[in-house]
């Protein structure tokens, strides 16, 4: 049933687009004309629906048709006949029969003969033969087996039988023997071709027995692992991977930080490419940097990269720069002499970023002690250089104080233990003699001394308002001892 576009329109009570309010007579005629123009490969109904505005793709569609019938030969029947044949690969006259097309050439060579390929093998004469370990008979035997099994070495090794009184041969022995004989033969026989092909052939007969044996041993040891060893190895491997990952992460973060803080001065190789995008902001500064970066890109020594963070050592020598520094309050920090790696490199930083802080392990103790002393160290209002140094010395002093306290505690403990032991000794042997008593007295004296000192420290901890003078004294005394260390540290940094 042919359904035209106008039919659809009328069914949907739409106004006809091409012919406004028209009668039905022009429409069939029009469709008639269209049908004649219908392109190949499109059904009449579909064409009637979509009209002349058929997509160009459709025109390319092939006419739908059934699956093509297979074409068997040149039409009609093929005559097959049972024909006996001879196989040129055989040495005898066996005739087998098979079905072939009647039209085939009866005299053609058997088509599977060409797969009968003989591998090349070497032979040698009695005169050529000299060897101490292998007798000629054994070598002959080996060559026969190798030829028989076409150098399938696993099979050769399986089938090779050493002479009854001879040594048993491993696979490597056999291979080594065979290849070494072949190499010798190639080397010593007259060679028809050029040297290159000879060398190539020699190369193909190369065999390193010891290496092969070592490789086999490795495989064997790999297979002989116990399950525990395998598990341990796997655990180690996972651990290694984890460490590597951490390392990478750490390095990435450090680079990120360096890039953020230092930019071009960090000496990272990929920084130039990144800077390109920002170049529009400060062309001149960028040029300068770029020049700098180029210098960095080809560092003569690794230390060059490191020294870039702090200004190069030449600079401070010029009086002008010293004056410049003084004018602009620039403080230059001497680069630590010992360190030349990137890790210890300190880029430019705000001083307040690097306020001295106690070691993380000691932090709670230090904080506690300082709180007991009524010192607030957490907020440095004005982090000038001097203030920073002061704060650092304060923390050093506190740390030293804590260390001392620790020592005192330990000594006290020792004394207590000794005293108890002494008491027991006295109880045990009442008539022990005078010298023990004397010792005890001496101990007691010493204790009295230490006790006094310990108390002074203790008092710092326990009582705040108690004995102000004494406390200040003890703190100051520690302070002096700490100051030397501070000085050392300052020198170092």
């Amino acid at each position, binding site marked *: 049933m042919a359904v035209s576009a106008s039919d659809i329109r009328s069914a949907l009570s739409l106004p006809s687009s091409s012919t406004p309010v028209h009668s039905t007579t022009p429409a069939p005629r029009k469709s008639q004309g269209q049908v004649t123009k219908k392109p190949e490969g499109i059904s009449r109904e579909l064409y009637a629906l979509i009209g002349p505005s058929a997509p160009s793709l459709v025109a390319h569609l092939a006419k739908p048709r059934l699956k093509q019938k297979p074409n068997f030969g040149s039409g009609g029947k093929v005559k097959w006949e049972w024909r006996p044949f001879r*196989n040129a*690969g*055989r040495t*005898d*006259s*066996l*005739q*087998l*029969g*098979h*079905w072939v097309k009647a039209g085939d050439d009866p005299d053609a060579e*058997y*088509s*599977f*003969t060409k*797969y*009968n390929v003989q591998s090349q093998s070497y032979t040698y004469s009695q005169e050529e033969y000299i060897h101490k370990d292998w007798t000629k008979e054994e070598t002959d035997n080996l060559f026969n087996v190798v030829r*028989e*099994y076409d150098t*399938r070495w*696993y*099979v050769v*090794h*399986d*089938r090779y039988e050493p002479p009854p009184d001879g040594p048993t041969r491993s*696979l490597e022995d056999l291979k080594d023997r065979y290849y070494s004989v072949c190499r010798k033969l190639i080397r010593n026989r007259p060679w028809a071709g050029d040297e290159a092909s000879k060398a190539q052939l020699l190369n193909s007969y190369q065999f390193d027995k010891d290496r092969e044996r070592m490789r*086999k041993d490795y*495989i*064997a040891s790999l*297979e002989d692992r116990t399950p525990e060893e395998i598990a341990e190895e796997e655990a180690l491997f996972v651990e290694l991977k984890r460490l590597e990952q951490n390392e990478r992460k750490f390095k990435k973060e450090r680079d990120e930080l360096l890039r953020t803080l230092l930019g071009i001065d960090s000496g990272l190789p990929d920084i130039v490419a990144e800077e390109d995008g920002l170049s529009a902001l400060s062309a001149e500064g960028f040029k300068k940097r770029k020049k700098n970066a180029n210098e960095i890109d080809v560092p003569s020594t690794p230390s060059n990269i490191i020294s870039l963070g702090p200004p190069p050592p030449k600079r401070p020598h010029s009086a002008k720069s010293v004056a410049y520094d003084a004018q602009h309050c620039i403080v230059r920090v001497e680069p630590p002499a010992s360190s030349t790696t990137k890790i210890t490199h300190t880029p430019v930083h705000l001083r307040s970023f690097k306020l001295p802080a106690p070691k993380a392990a000691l932090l709670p103790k230090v904080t506690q002690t300082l709180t007991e002393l009524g010192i607030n160290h957490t907020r440095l209002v004005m982090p000038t250089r001097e203030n920073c140094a002061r704060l650092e010395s304060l923390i050093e002093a506190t740390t030293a104080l804590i260390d001392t306290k620790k020592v005192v505690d330990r000594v006290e403990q020792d004394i207590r233990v000794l005293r108890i032991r002494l008491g027991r000794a006295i109880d045990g042997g009442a008539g022990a003699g005078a010298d023990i008593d004397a010792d005890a007295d001496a101990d007691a004296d010493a204790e009295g001394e230490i006790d006094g000192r310990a108390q002074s420290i203790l008092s710092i901890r326990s009582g705040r308002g108690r004995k102000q003078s004494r406390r200040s004294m003890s703190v100051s005394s520690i302070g002096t001892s700490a100051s030397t260390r501070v000085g050392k540290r300052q020198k170092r940094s």
Partner: protein
Amino acid sequence: MVNYGGDEVSALVLDIGSSSVRAGYAGDDIPKAIIPSFYGYKATSGDADVQMSENAPENFDSTPKQTPSDAKLYLGQNGPSIWREGMEIGNPIRDALIFDFNPVPALISHALVDVMRVNPSEHPILVTEPAWNTPANRERMAEIMFEEFHVPAFYIANTGVLNAFAAGKGSALVIDVGHAMASITPVVDGFVLRKGLVSSALPKLVQAHARHILSNPTQTRRGIELLPHQLIANKLVRCLSYPNYSFYHYDITQPVEPGAPPRFTLREDRISGTTESWRVWCESREVEEWIQSVAGVLDQGWNDQAAASRSPRQYEFPTGYNTYFGPERYQVGEQFFFHSPQLVAQNPNLPKNIPTLLSESLRACDPDLRQVLMGNVVLTGGGSLFPGFADRLEAELSRNFPHVKIHAPGNPIERRYGGWLGGSILASLGTFHQLWISREEWQEHGKPIVGQRCK
């Protein structure tokens, strides 16, 4: 035609196994003739004092006597399975090797001439042999083929290699669990590595174990009488709940309830004429059928809970006795993989189980080869058709080796007759036809040609 390398010369393939003889055309996918290797015979001479103590089924090393050459043979599907008075049962195969060549020509002739209806003198024939076959045996087989069947050409190929070919592999580790022997054969480039070849009579042990389970009473049931259906006249009992019907001489009969003692009538007339060997053969067939329909292997090693959690399976014996078998059916298959220490202690020459065979075989192979072989494990043989066998093997192997791939055909025909199938493929290849030992060569060189040609 050359694309797949096939060129069929209408060769025949003959695969003689412990339980059946398979014969067919090369190029087919199923053997045309499958006949049992067992045969019945009646000695014509009055040599009546046949073996009584021999053929004890528990004893794997029994030496059956040879069949007299003038005996009347009953072969094929209607041979041993039909009760005949005074008929003995024989099998020419022992440990997968032919030890008694007297009935072999008759068996071959039955398969080729009576079943396949071919004239053997018109077709080249490929015969299979186990990897541990003796040179004398294969030469004798060649002699039979050339002198008795007058074949134009002959070849004898190794079942291990043929099984690898059937799986489409040139190099493989073939695990073949047959009716009498389980063997592991490393094959490299179509050659058997003889040093890595191991075999044991493991299936015999499994059968003996199953028989032991069945015939010994347990807490819940009595020992089961393994009587063949040929000796049973009636196993149905009259239904007692409808006594009225017997009034109309209309018997309602039905089997006994599961677990109830069987109520059957023996064919008393046959008892006296039944020979010991026939009775033993029938019993082992009953055991085998029970194994085939009930037994399985736990795929993740022995585990009492797992064995108990599997659903029991009902089985009815020819006597009418029927019951449900639970964990016992997995104990049978377990014998392939694990032997309890006390069993090992009791039997010093117990057949080695499959994990032992595997490690023995691989130890003899080159370390380089082990990976290749483990990636190409071919499981074949009818004895491997236990449900769960392949899964268990995979579990056992992957415990010790990282990359194991097992090729186990799902089709039971392919699994059981893998050796025949490989022979069918080999003998239909165009490149193979130069390997045939022709009649001319046989006449010229004699027996040594077999060893030279068939490596």
